[in-house]
């Protein structure tokens, strides 16, 4: 079905497409709860370039579901619709622990240069200034899963009420709830005996990143049509590596966009985005 009426695409839809592009055909892929962007990316990937992908849904653990809409909560029967069956919670985490989970999606309120993530707390862990909801399965899965795609819609460092800019991509991470490439004491994930390969891609509202193979530091790979290298540098507290051939991300086709809109008639994914990013649109 080609929807010729679609002539522009929103930034959230472009981000969903970038996340989808990190999925390889034939991988067993899992998204966590409260993750509409990866959920839509998985639904999209399986219906386009990755038909053999095994889709495991985030809280119901439904296998290859085809939900009629995304509700704003993750553990709902609608998300099992069209699925083969629902796995048990132990089945799911055992798949990862024995090395059979190909990809997972994680986010964080703090991200450091090595892709370590914090969704636990800001300030001292024992008496936090801000207690965040917690890591779910992210702590274990960050060690076990073959490849991790990180996504966040909060790269831009906005000022708080006191006028202090709040960086999400930080020099110092308050609590490592998910392990990236290098631990706090400088130990690499390989030396820790972890089975998974760690973060492979990072998709934000400012650009798409991978990790420099030598230094393991976050590396800018591509920008959006309306962002610049300077935007990335200004909004990242540490100094990221800039790839020599930074390009512009490919935009989804009208077919991709029509699929995303069909999957999410309630626009549940928009809840993840700030109004300024919802307003960003690109002509096809």
């Amino acid at each position, binding site marked *: 079905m080609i929807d010729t009426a679609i002539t522009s695409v929103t930034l959230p839809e472009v981000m969903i497409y970038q996340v989808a592009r990190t999925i390889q055909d034939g991988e067993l892929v899992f998204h966590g709860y409260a993750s509409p962007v990866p959920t839509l990316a998985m639904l999209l990937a399986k219906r386009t370039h990755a038909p053999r992908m095994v889709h495991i849904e985030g809280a119901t653990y439904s296998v290859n579901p085809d939900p009629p809409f995304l509700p704003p909560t993750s553990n*709902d029967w609608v998300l099992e619709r069209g699925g083969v069956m629902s796995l048990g919670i132990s089945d799911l985490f055992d798949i990862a622990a024995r090395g059979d989970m190909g990809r997972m999606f994680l986010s964080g309120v703090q991200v450091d240069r090595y892709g370590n993530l914090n969704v636990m707390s800001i300030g001292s862990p024992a008496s936090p200034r801000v207690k965040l909801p917690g890591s779910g399965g992210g702590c274990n899965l960050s060690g076990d899963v073959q490849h991790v795609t990180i996504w966040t819609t909060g790269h831009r460092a906005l000022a708080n009420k006191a006028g202090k800019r709040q960086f999400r991509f930080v020099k110092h991470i308050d609590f490592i709830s998910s392990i990236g490439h290098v631990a706090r004491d400088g130990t690499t994930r390989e030396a*820790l005996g972890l089975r998974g390969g760690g973060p492979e891609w990072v998709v934000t509202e400012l650009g798409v990143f991978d990790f420099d193979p030598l230094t393991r530091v976050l590396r800018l790979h591509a920008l959006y049509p309306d962002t610049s290298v300077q935007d990335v540098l200004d909004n990242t507290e540490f100094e990221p590596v800039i790839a020599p051939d930074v390009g512009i991300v490919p935009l989804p086709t009208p077919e991709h966009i029509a699929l995303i809109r069909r999957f999410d008639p*309630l626009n549940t994914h928009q809840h993840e985005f700030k109004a300024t990013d919802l307003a960003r649109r690109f002509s096809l």
Partner: protein
Amino acid sequence: MSIFTSEHKQASLADAACIVRDGMTIAIGGGLSWREPVAFLRELIRQGRRDLHVVGTAHGVDVDLLCGAGAVSVVEESYVGFEQDFGMAPNYRRACQDGLTKVYDTCCHTLIQQLRAAEYGVPFLPVRSVQGTDFLQLHAEYKTMTCPFTGLPLVLVPALAPDVAIVHAQYGDAQGNLKILPPLVADLLFIRASKHVIATVEQLLPADELRALQPNVPYFWVEAVVEAPYGAHPTSCYPFYSYDRAHLAEYYRAAQAGPETFAREYLDPYVFAPATHEDYLQRVGGIAKQQTLQSWKDGDDAWMALFTTPEGAIA
């Protein structure tokens, strides 16, 4: 795990709640906005239970409600929040930040291994993950060792046997056999690992009718069973009802406004004032509300409408 052989386990909410005592470790069934035994938790609050240590995976209003009532001293969950729907859990967050509850976050596979160790009757199980994260510093009871077979480092996590597992099942019988419909979340792990199991059920069926449904929890693990229709409200319990998003929005507004407002506008009218569970159901909207929450069965449009109610509309 204990064995409970009584033929007659049916109890009232008030009697069953007496099994839980101050300071106990409790595992709450369900997860996020699905099949949480909230009617039972309201009864625990009414009875003034204190210093509870709650364990679990990804939870929401259940743990937040207990925190808001000051009933919890340790939270060992992997997540407590209202997802992208409403956001962070206000009472839980305040309790952690004000030092009223110990911050003791866990992670799903870690907890699964701890519960399975209890289920298997072994003192610990290993995980390969967790290394490199700060959870090792948060949990002094986790140990590390070099695997004698592979030479690689491992984290050992101790068996965790909750004092009481509390689950809400769709169906049960008076002997305590249960049929829980998926997603099962961690319910079966909790039931097998815990010392006591309390079940609330949507429908208490005659033994032969329950048997025809192929129960997935045998009676001898269950100490008490309570019939509590809409006992998971405001979370969902399909095929009976969807979650009550409008009520959760009201809950969230009260919780966000601070402890005094939460006590006055939520705990008083919905937890302390109702004399019975039936009274609670009347206060949250009675038959009309129940019909609305059942309307997910009327097709995708009706189901979608439950997530776009004006009160709970996406901001």
